[in-house]
């Protein structure tokens, strides 16, 4: 199982590659007034507006710093009702793709944020999986993807 490794603060996390559409450099985002803090803004993906979630912010930390390896990952967000939405995720220090053996994965044992899943250890430390589908709380989901405006 391949994951895209990025950092939140000093820790490493992995996005499962099957849900990643593509990786983009950090772009200028359009601000959204009165939007929740975890929404970094709105990006333009080939003419389609796309909400961008700051992964550092949604994890309760300071907003992502603009490093050269701070990226925007376009991921597939599958809502509970089965519709698939494109969702931009701003991630710090996107290092690359890493292969994680399923047998290395183990439950973290601590239930903190709902979107943090199993952990796997390797030479550089531990990688915790991030479940994209659990990333948005219901209230935020309702704001970003109102039921009738579902996009592929």
């Amino acid at each position, binding site marked *: 199982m391949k994951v895209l490794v990025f950092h939140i603060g000093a820790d490493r996390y992995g996005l499962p590659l099957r849900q990643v*559409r*593509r*990786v983009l*450099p950090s772009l200028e985002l359009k601000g959204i007034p009165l939007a929740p803090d975890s929404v970094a803004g709105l990006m333009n993906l080939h003419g389609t507006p796309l909400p961008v979630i700051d992964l550092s912010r949604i994890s309760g930390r300071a907003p992502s710093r603009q490093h050269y*390896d701070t990226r925007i990952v376009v991921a597939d967000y599958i809502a509970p009702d089965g519709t698939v939405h494109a969702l931009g995720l701003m991630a710090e220090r996107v290092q690359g*793709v890493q292969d994680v053996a399923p047998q290395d994965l183990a439950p973290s044992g601590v239930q903190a944020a709902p979107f943090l899943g199993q952990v796997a250890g390797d030479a550089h430390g531990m990688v915790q999986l991030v479940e994209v589908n659990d990333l948005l709380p219901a209230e935020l989901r309702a704001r970003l993807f109102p039921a009738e405006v579902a996009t592929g």
Partner: protein
Amino acid sequence: MNNLSIKNKLYIGFGSIVAIILLLLILAYNNFASLTDANRWDRHTMEVLLQLDRINSVSLQIQVDTRGYILTGSEALIGSERENAEQLKQQVAKAVQLTADNPQQNERLKRAQALLTTWADVNIRRQIDKRRSLGDTKGAAEILGQSSELKEAGAIVASARELLDQAAEEERRLLAERSAKAVDLHSNQNNLLLGGGAAVFVLSLLIAYTLGRAILGPLANLTAGLARLGSGDLAARTVVTSGDELGKVSEDFNKMAQQLQDATLREQAQTNELRAKVDSLLGVVARAAGGDMTGKISVGGDDAIGQLGDGLQRMFDNLRQLLTNVQKAGIQVTTSATEIAASAKQQEATGVEQAQTSVEVLSTTKEISSNTSQLLKTMEDATAVADYTTSATSEAQGNLRRMDQTMQNMVNATDSINAKLAALSEKASNINSVLTTITKVADQTNILSLNAAIEAEKAGEAGRGFSVVATEIRRLADQTSVSTWDIEQMLKEMQSAVSASVMGMDKFSEEIRRSVGEVRQVTDQLSGVMDQVQKLAPQFDAVLQGMQAQAVGAQQITETMMQLNDATQQTVESLKATSEAVHQLQYAAGDLQSSVSTFAVNA
């Protein structure tokens, strides 16, 4: 009796009188009937007597006729002898019939009848017949007169006449008896009429008096009560003594009087209330007239006096407001007047001070005039010192010019070094931009390799080889990034070194420039000093002229000050006048205040 109605009283009273009169009438009628009866009996007796007289008369006629015939023998005299006899019998029968009620008389008359019938039918006939038989015989009359027949007839008639006389006598006795009885009855009648009349009169008087008392007493009470009421005594009441109509009238009168009294009392109470209200209003108005405006109108209501009270209250409120305002205005006017007076006094004092100041200025001006001459002398000494200064300054100026030249050379050299360092810095910048491009490329390559890895992952088994290539590319990109970062670091070090040199040179050249500037400044200052000193001489002349002009000016100042003094004096005078006016204003305001303060407006 008292509770009977007047109608019943009248009925009873008059009924009683009528009953007594009726009784009297019945009694009188009875008496009258008795009298009538007695009269009838009298008449009857008289009739009987008359009848007896007629019998006597007829019998006498018969006797007379018979005697006449006997004497004369004239048949004409006895022509009616039969008729007279019949008449006699009828008369006797009638008398017998009349005395049918009296057996004794009847018996007498019947005997008389028998005698007379016999006498008329027998004795007289015998006499007549005898005479006739005698005819015209001389002495017939004496014969007859001596005859037994005549004697017998005379005896019979005498006895009949005696019987008749007895009957007449009896009748007369009865008549006398009945007359006495009738007199008794008459006197009874009289007595009854007199006594009954008197009794009726007395009884009527009694009833009339009783009725009068029963009716007129209450009526008199009522009339007296009405008279008292009419004369204004509202407490007048009548005593209800009876239950009749007058009693009811009295009760009603009492009720009416009570109502009148109540109404009057009510009216009086209303009048008193009204008077109290009006008095209260008048009191407040009187206080207000006396200047005390604090009175409150306590009279209210919807009636006319209440509205009057409300209107007065409003008027007082307005007046009070007005007076308060006037008082305030008076106080303000007084205050303002006092302030004006104070300012006027201050101005006056200021004017006096000005006058004093003018005098001081005058003396000062004189001092200036005397000082000016001393200054002139001092100026001459200063001129000599200025000449010496000029020569010393020109020497120093020459030395400073040489120093300035050397400094200029140093500045030029420093500028050349600076230009070279700038060129070096520019080159480093160029390298830096190249490095940026390389970094961007490496970054793009990195992203490209990431996306390639993602696409390879999505391609599955077919993308396995491509995945390896992508990983290689990423590694290359990473190495490029690292090398670029090293170069960047070195370049940065170099740039910082150059910057430090440039900064040092800049500081140095800056110092030199400052030195040059200072030297130039000193030179300029020296030239300035020299110029100034050279200019001093004519300036001193100007000063001298100025001094003289000053003396003249001082004189002019003195004159102006004199004029100013005069003007100040006038100002002081006018200020005094103003002060006087303000005092008058103050008095007026005080008067106003005291006038208004006679009106008390606050409770």
